[in-house]
């Protein structure tokens, strides 16, 4: 990353940090949700955009982490034990990926997609039926948020909770950036571009995919735990196919294989969902139209267009100066 990219990122974070000062609490809450989904979508992008693995079961990891954190919160601690809940949530998401990965990564393409989809819906079924532990379709409510009063944060307040999520968003983004820029991340792109060649060059493709799968699940797990605190409630819908599909749309809409693309996609999807669902329950139709339009006119995603325009703008500005 060059200097101007660091500067842009820094400015972005500053803007995100200042936004609650001008937004109404309702909108700050919405922005919080967008940040949580951004982490989720960016984690999926490690698979979709970088490794070339299309997944329709990513909700499995979000949901597992959310449920584990929620069960500990509501049934075990009767209150929030943040360190343990976050760790347990993330570790269980990673473990789930480690188990599912053994099965699903044996297959490729559409088969991979279908087997993972089926596995994740099985988890949904468990959450739905195992009423004693998961609360069934009533879900688990009464989740208490972490207590950060010792540093003067009241996470019950919308704005304070927003900063709490922003912190995790920034950390996750930095870590994901490091992964995709690493030597390992380079091999993932190689797998996306040509598995055959990677194999004959001596790479154990399965192992690389497996590690990527677990890393992606870890960040999906972070999003899941945050989601549980945000809603103060978890339900089987966290594990549902619709959640996986939404994430995939966010990634493709924003720009697969880019760092910030999925975050922009998350923003668009959640705004459409929120505002259109106020007028009609058929908001999925509008989202569908937006999605089709983006695939037709911006197949590389919104972020690439934005980048292109920015580059042209900068170029014109430099020309006018010289």
């Amino acid at each position, binding site marked *: 990353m060059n200097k101007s990219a660091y500067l842009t990122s820094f400015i972005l974070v500053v803007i995100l940090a200042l936004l609650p000062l001008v937004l109404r609490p309702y909108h700050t809450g919405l922005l919080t949700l967008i940040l949580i989904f951004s982490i989720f979508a960016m984690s999926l992008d490690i698979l979709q955009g970088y490794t070339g693995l299309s997944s329709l079961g990513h909700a499995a990891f979000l949901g597992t982490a959310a449920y584990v954190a929620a069960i500990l919160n509501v049934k075990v601690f009767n209150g929030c034990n943040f360190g343990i809940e976050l760790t347990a949530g993330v570790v269980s998401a990673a473990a789930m990926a480690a188990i599912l990965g053994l099965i699903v990564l044996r297959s490729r393409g559409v088969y991979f997609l279908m087997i993972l989809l089926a596995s994740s819906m099985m988890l949904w079924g468990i959450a739905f039926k195992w009423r004693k532990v998961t609360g069934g379709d009533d879900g688990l409510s009464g989740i208490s948020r972490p207590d950060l009063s010792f540093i003067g944060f009241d996470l019950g307040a919308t704005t304070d909770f927003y900063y709490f999520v922003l912190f995790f968003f920034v950390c996750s983004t930095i870590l994901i950036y490091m992964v995709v820029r690493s030597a390992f991340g380079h091999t993932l792109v190689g797998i996306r571009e040509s598995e055959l060649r990677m*194999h*004959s060059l001596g790479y154990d493709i399965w192992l690389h995919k497996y590690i990527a799968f677990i890393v992606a699940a870890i960040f999906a797990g972070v999003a899941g735990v945050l989601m549980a605190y945000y809603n103060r409630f978890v339900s089987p819908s966290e594990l549902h196919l619709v959640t996986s599909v939404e994430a995939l749309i966010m990634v493709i809409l924003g720009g697969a294989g880019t760092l910030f693309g999925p975050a922009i996609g998350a923003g668009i999807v959640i705004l459409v969902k929120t505002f259109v669902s106020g007028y009609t329950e058929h908001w999925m139709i509008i989202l569908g139209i937006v999605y089709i339009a983006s695939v037709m006119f911006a197949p590389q995603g919104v972020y690439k267009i934005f980048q292109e325009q920015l580059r042209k703008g900068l170029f014109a500005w430099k020309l006018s100066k010289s």
Partner: protein
Amino acid sequence: MEALEVVKLSKSFGGLHAVRDVSFRVMQGERMAIIGPNGAGKTTLFQLISGMLTPSGGSVFAFGTDITKLPPNRRAGIGIGRTFQITQLFMNLTVLENVVLALEALHKMRFNLLRPLSSYRQLLAQAEDILKRWGMLDRRDTMARNLSYGEQRQLEIILTLSQNRSILLLDEPTCGLSPEEARSFVSMIRDLPRTITILIIDHDIDVTFEIAEKVMVLHFGAVIAYGPSEEVKVNPRVQDIYMGSQ
């Protein structure tokens, strides 16, 4: 020392016997060509040796180790490198990044999740060196997909050669190269140290005989002639197949 030994290797696809009972030995440092009409099973044989396909029967040994059941990446580790008849490049990566991926496969760093690739200065310098040697340094930042066909073929070969594997399987390496490019390719291959064993499939008979001292002729999946190039050239059955019977 035998670099490669193939014993009664067969592969059938349904009723089609693409490779039948092929046996041969290649000593370390030998250069062997596999020729034969289209559909003779040459590429299938390469797929079997490199592990892209599993044989229906027979075995493959490399340096005395039975590799018949090993996946391609393990065979690469034992020393088998190959090029592809149909170009297999990382099209959306730059030329330099392509070579870096080939080099990275040989290092533990491929599992480093946190250290940026750009910080491996030595590896990048090594990749640049390789490009320089092949006269492609000026293309280092070009996307592989934007290269000309000839350049893509060249990169195809560079990727394989840069790994310094001890057995090279070259599948139609000069296909699509201009005569000059083909000539510089031949001299490049001839300059390789004699510790490296080479198996080559090529339609260009001149290229084949300039590189290889031994020739194996395949016809409908079976070996019909095998020996020093001079002998094979005058073998009446080979002439039959290539020239048609008189």
